[in-house]
């Protein structure tokens, strides 16, 4: 096939890719015209509201909805009884969207109403009488693992006998270790990774550093609350407009929970106001559908900010122990870790991924990581940008920082000495292909920020990070319009400018202008199944599928040119936006441009379109190194981030501005995690800070400019070398800032967030120990 001649396996010369055009959805977004989840409305729609448990853990003895149903203007009231369990549905998701007998966390949905307006719906919620019997609760991961902890799911998880397991001392206190007497447990899973013999390895060490660390749960903090509008007809056909990262997931899960054929539910994704992993599951969507089904009218449900905090999916809080041994020259000889992540009221905390990522940056001969997935009376966690990795990196990179300090080795040099590279057997199993950690470390070392002289109470921190990146099921169509422009239909929701990247790749592959390609996000009935926009997979997977769909179209367009010229199809090649005879033997014809081929499509065989479907693999991992300078006020404990540098491997940056944007956004979310953000639970197990005033994400005046360097070590798994970039950027900041604080004032932070009172207390502790 002559196409191969100008479409090599790995392209390195580009015309469109790597430029920075305005995004195709840009004007709509700066004029307020773009339609997000809550911006959609249907004629005659009702307002849906959800009643939520005020208790962290309670038996629901009865629910009386009669008064609410009698209120004029109320069209439907539902409880779990209106969503009967379907065979084969995900029971945990079913229970999470509406409590069935037991409220498992503060904010757990208990009932819902649909009424003519919000005012009536609010009144109706107050009229629903729920008789609760409050049960003992547990929200802390270490507490939840104790033998006397309240059990969330009696009969579900077997007790764990720690005495037979590795590193039992770091799982629980001595007394708990011995007892495996109780009937049930909150430990939902245990994961072990590693290779070699850490116990032997530590014997070769000149220095061993080990510590315990704790991080608090944080929320993705997307500015757009969850919103959807559901319309179910009396014949069982349904439509749903929703802000989600995964419209196909929403369709399949809702159909399964509600006992519908998938074909009867069409889901149209709106523009999405941030997700970061938090919109990769369902919360209000099946409830809205169930309300609409009962009321016989469209129902719109929009969460309040308080509901977002209490009842969506923040990430895990974590309790960790990390031990690393090194030679005097900085070579790591052994590493060991125990990670305990609580994932809320259901199994599935990201501890497995946290364990896989913990030591992934380093070439270790002897390494072991044990991870525990623990349930507590908190909302079921959802993915949050590189789920599980920032916490374990906080602990590991903190220990590495301390080893470097104690050995008097530069923070970047010690990482360069141990860095994973091509051929390294990773701590979680696979052997790395071409990866760019060394390149990020070298670029960080060469950057001007690393040479700035620091003043009093100022310090510098370094940390590296890793994320796998995912690929997965992807389906793309590209349609040639009559005038030679193109409509590109994608099934992966655009969270941060991906339509621009897809148009760039399509234009590159066709040899035409970026402006001639228009990308849309299709609904679930218009395109084959696509996995969720998650795992930094979109630019990789949909990009790959876009390129292959364009190649499919090019073959077809070459075929039409062959027909027009009366020569064999394989005597035509595609170059610079036109079909050309492949060589002098093919004949002497002037090129046929894409516009000319489009104009003759009807006469030469009908419409022209390219398609590609794949369960993609080969998403190359992305490594990063961050450097941060902070200044700490010794009188208040407050700190200011002075400089921040992100160096990350993008493989190939398709639209560099949006690559930088991912680096900067992830870094600032990480800065929030280390400085301010935390889920704060009261003694009664209720969330105390369910709003942006008390759950303080970084504001504009909290941070400096975020400097970026894009490293490009091409990923052989993608035709243009692309690696996902969305998630790695949140992995290093926790440790990076903590290491900088340690450099500034000699206080090593091992619990997050490092709020001013904590820093001040630590400073006073240092002063007292010196006195």
């Amino acid at each position, binding site marked *: 096939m002559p196409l191969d001649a100008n479409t090599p396996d790995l392209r390195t010369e580009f015309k469109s890719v790597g430029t*920075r055009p*305005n*995004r195709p*959805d*840009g*004007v709509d*977004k*700066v*004029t*307020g*015209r*773009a*339609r*997000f989840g*809550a*911006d959609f*409305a249907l004629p005659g729609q009702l307002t849906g509201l959800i009643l939520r448990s005020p208790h962290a853990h309670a038996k629901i003895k009865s629910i009386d909805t009669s008064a609410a149903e009698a209120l004029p203007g109320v069209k439907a009231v539902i409880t779990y009884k209106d969503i009967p369990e379907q065979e084969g549905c995900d029971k945990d998701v079913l229970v999470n969207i509406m409590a069935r007998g037991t409220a498992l966390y503060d904010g757990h949905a208990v009932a819902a109403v649909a009424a003519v307006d919000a*005012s009536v719906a609010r009144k109706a919620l107050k009229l629903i009488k729920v008789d609760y019997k409050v049960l003992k609760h547990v929200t802390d991961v270490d507490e939840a693992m104790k033998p006397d902890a309240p059990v969330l799911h009696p009969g579900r998880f077997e007790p764990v006998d720690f005495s037979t397991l590795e590193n039992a001392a770091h799982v629980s206190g001595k007394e708990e270790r011995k007892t495996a007497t109780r009937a049930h447990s909150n430990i939902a899973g245990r994961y072990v990774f590693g290779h070699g013999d850490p116990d032997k390895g530590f014997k070769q060490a000149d220095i061993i550093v080990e510590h315990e660390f704790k991080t608090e749960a944080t929320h*993705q*903090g*997307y*500015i*757009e*609350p969850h919103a959807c509008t559901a319309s179910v007809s009396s014949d069982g056909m349904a439509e749903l407009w929703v802000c989600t990262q995964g419209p196909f997931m929403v369709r399949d899960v809702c159909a399964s929970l509600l006992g519908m054929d998938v074909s009867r539910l069409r889901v149209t994704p709106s*523009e*999405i*106001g*941030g*997700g*970061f992993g938090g919109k990769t599951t369902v919360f209000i969507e099946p409830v809205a559908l169930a309300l609409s089904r009962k009321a016989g009218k469209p129902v719109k449900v*929009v969460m*309040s*900010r308080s509901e977002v905090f209490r009842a969506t999916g923040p990430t895990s809080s974590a309790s960790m122990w990390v031990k690393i041994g090194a030679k005097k020259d900085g070579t790591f000889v052994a590493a060991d870790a125990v990670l305990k992540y609580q994932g809320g009221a259901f199994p599935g905390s990201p501890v497995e991924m946290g364990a896989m990522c913990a030591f992934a940056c380093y070439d270790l001969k002897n390494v072991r990581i044990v991870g525990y997935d623990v349930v507590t009376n908190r909302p079921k966690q959802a993915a949050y940008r590189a789920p599980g990795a920032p916490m374990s990196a906080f602990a590991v990179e903190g220990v590495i920082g301390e080893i470097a300090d104690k050995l008097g080795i530069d923070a970047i040099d010690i990482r360069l000495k141990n860095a994973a590279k091509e051929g390294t057997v990773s701590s979680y199993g696979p052997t790395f292909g071409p990866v760019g950690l060394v390149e990020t470390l070298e670029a960080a070392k060469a950057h001007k920020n690393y040479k700035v002289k620091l003043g009093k109470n100022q310090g510098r921190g370094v940390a590296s990070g890793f994320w796998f990146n995912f690929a997965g099921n992807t389906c793309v169509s590209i349609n040639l319009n009559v005038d030679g422009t193109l409509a590109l239909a994608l099934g992966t929701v655009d*969270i*941060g*400018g991906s339509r621009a990247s897809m148009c760039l790749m399509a234009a590159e592959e066709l040899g035409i202008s970026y402006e001639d390609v228009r990308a849309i996000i299709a609904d679930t009935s218009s395109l084959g199944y696509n996995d969720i926009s998650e795992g930094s997979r979109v630019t990789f997977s949909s990009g790959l599928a876009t390129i292959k769909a364009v190649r499919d179209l090019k073959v077809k367009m070459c075929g039409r040119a062959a027909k027009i010229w009366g020569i064999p199809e394989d005597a035509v090649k595609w170059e610079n936006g036109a079909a050309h005879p492949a060589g002098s033997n093919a004949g002497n014809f002037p090129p046929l441009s894409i516009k000319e081929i489009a104009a003759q499509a009807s006469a030469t065989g009908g419409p022209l379109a390219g398609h590609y479907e794949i369960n993609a693999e080969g998403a190359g991992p992305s490594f990063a190194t961050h450097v941060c300078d902070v200044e700490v006020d010794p009188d208040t404990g407050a700190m200011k981030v002075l400089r921040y540098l992100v160096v990350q491997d993008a493989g190939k940056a398709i*639209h560099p*501005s*949006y690559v*930088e*944007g991912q680096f*900067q*956004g*992830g*870094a*600032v*979310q990480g800065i929030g995690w280390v400085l301010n953000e935390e889920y704060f639970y009261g003694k009664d197990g209720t969330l105390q800070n369910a*709003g*942006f*005033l008390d759950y303080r*994400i*970084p*504001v*504009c*005046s*909290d*941070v400096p*400019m*975020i400097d970026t360097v894009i490293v490009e070590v091409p990923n052989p798994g993608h035709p243009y070398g692309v690696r996902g970039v969305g998630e790695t950027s949140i992995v290093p900041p926790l440790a990076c800032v903590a290491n900088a604080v340690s450099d500034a004032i000699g206080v090593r932070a091992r619990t997050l967030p490092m709020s001013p009172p904590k820093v001040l207390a630590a400073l006073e502790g240092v002063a007292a120990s010196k006195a």
Partner: protein
Amino acid sequence: MSAVHVSTNINGDDVEFVCRPDESLLDVLRDRLGMTGSKEGCGTGDCGACSVELDGRLVCSCLVMGAEVGGHKIETIEGMAQGDKLHPLQQKFLEHAALQCGICTPGFLVAARNLLERNNDPTETEVRYWLAGNLCRCTGYDKIVRAVLDTAKDMRKAAAKSSAKKASAKKPAAKKKAAPKKTAKKGARHAA
């Protein structure tokens, strides 16, 4: 709870609506008038996604009651572009890739315009503190601040050009480049 009849002015147009006394200006804009460009991120005045101008003053429309805007002038994101001509801030936000998901963008644009109408030569710190009431979770603020500073620079250039033009009209020998003014001219719309 009986509805309230309100006469007001939005983006230069006289507008009448009825609303319940418990509805915020944001509720009215979005649900009664179909102006969904202003967003609700929190409903408690903490995120700034619903920013509008009320008689030239930057406010969170979720904290203003719909019933109290009678006789006032409201400016929303929908009034920022003039016909098909984007406001310079809108153009710069596109060029600088100062938006990712875009949900906070209308609020940032309204807030930034309010700043530049007061001060067309803000420092980076001034921009950061002025915009501290607007939350963005995607960008880390870097490209937003750059877009605002770059717009201010262009506005100063344009102001210098027009004042040089005026000066040269009076006195042909005037310098080509006038020094940029430190204080911005107040926008005509908010002169009252």
